[in-house]
């Protein structure tokens, strides 16, 4: 296993753990944390491609990715905060207002 493959397998492992956590956890805040884990896995893949191809563009994309992740965390936490304040629900499987 060469080094690039190592980093990509590491990134895939962390992304999978984040994906599983996002699907199976009930708490909305922990779901948002799993999103952050997935963002970080993608950032590791970007950085390793940037290093092993000798191209600096991957690092610039990591900067954009971090900025978008910060926006996503702010808006997601605002939505969760509004939900908890107005309905008292903080679990994802209790949001059933749209069920007929």
């Amino acid at each position, binding site marked *: 296993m060469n080094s690039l493959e190592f980093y990509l397998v590491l990134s895939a492992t*962390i992304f999978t753990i984040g994906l599983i956590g996002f*699907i199976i956890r009930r708490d909305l805040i922990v779901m948002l*944390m799993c999103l952050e*884990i997935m963002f970080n896995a993608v950032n590791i893949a970007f950085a390793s491609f940037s290093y092993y191809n000798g191209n600096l563009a991957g690092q610039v994309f990591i900067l954009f990715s971090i900025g978008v992740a910060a926006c996503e965390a702010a808006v997601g936490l605002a939505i969760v905060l509004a939900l908890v304040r107005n309905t008292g629900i903080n679990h994802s499987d209790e949001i059933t207002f749209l069920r007929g």
Partner: protein
Amino acid sequence: MSPLLIENVFLIYFFVSLSLLSLAVVASKNIIRSAFFLLIFLLHVAALFLFLNAEFLMVIQIIVYVGGVLVLFIFAIMVMNLKEELKHRRFIKFGLVGVLTGVVFFIGLYIFLKETKESGNFLTNASVENFGKLLFSYYLLPFEILSVVLLIALVGGLAIAKKLPKEDR
């Protein structure tokens, strides 16, 4: 010990610790404890950036993620003042299906990147100066768009989290 052996030891350490920390974030019972596992996880990712010649991104990772996003998470947990139920169920009812989806996804991803080849030319000109030159010349327009996105997220977050009047609840 040769440098290659030391590097391999460090990489294996990072693999094990990053996997265990992300599993701990997913599986821990207390939300605030999971936030602190996320903190250690983000610091490990920042250290991993150093292996890949990305010093500037290490600093950005620590400032933005640990100093911004994680503090936001912890503040949100404190503001919400969640009452922990006695029998707090952590996972959804059909959690096994989610695990199965993840395993199938990982197998597909692993088959895709099984025999990756390296191109041979490594990143040697990685410095903050070159990074800034690239960011402010070729990637100037995405940078400006990112600033607009940040502004919209700021205004939108304030508008969503604002307290509703009594009759609208």
